[in-house]
């Protein structure tokens, strides 16, 4: 099983970026929220693996429909 890692980089002005690896689906949003704290959110984007769970479900649905 792929390890779920969170990398937080805090720059010289104290602003941060949070990079998630090994997470899929809506769990990402919760983890980002955990590390956001009281901070103001800027750029946020989902990466390829986020969509993998959705893709799996669709594959399963198509298979079961055969």
């Amino acid at each position, binding site marked *: 099983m792929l390890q779920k890692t*969170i990398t937080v980089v805090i720059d010289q*002005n104290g602003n941060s970026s949070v990079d998630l690896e090994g997470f899929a689906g809506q769990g990402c949003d919760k983890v980002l929220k*955990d590390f956001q704290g009281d901070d103001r959110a*800027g750029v946020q984007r989902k990466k390829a693996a986020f969509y993998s769970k959705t893709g799996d479900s669709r594959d399963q649905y198509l298979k079961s429909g055969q």
Partner: protein
Amino acid sequence: MSAYGEFETIMQEERFLVEGLTAMGYKVEVQAAGAALVGYHGDERTETAHVIIRRAQLDSASNDIGFVRGADGHFRAILSEYDRSIGYNEQWLGKVHQHYKESQTMAAAKSKGYIFRRKEVIQTSNGPQIQLQFVAR
């Protein structure tokens, strides 16, 4: 890879501000009701603050540096023109925010059950960046 987010640090929690300043080597005075800042002549100034670095820890001609909690709950720094000119400027405030965010991140991760893996300080052309890595249970 699954998600990426960027956040602007807002200093709202006194304990992380105190921890951050302490990590930078300052002895900090916390005044719940606020206290007057002292100028370089030893005179009490009109400005008050809730978190104070007394001038004895700064330059011989420095004034106290204060952090006052505003109506919005955010801390803002009170820095004299002289102190800004000798290095207690925006760059220094950036370091304060950086240490604040490190303390806040460590506390948030612990309270939410994430496991701390490692810390690295990466030197960049803009200054040092702190990299913290955690794993989810």
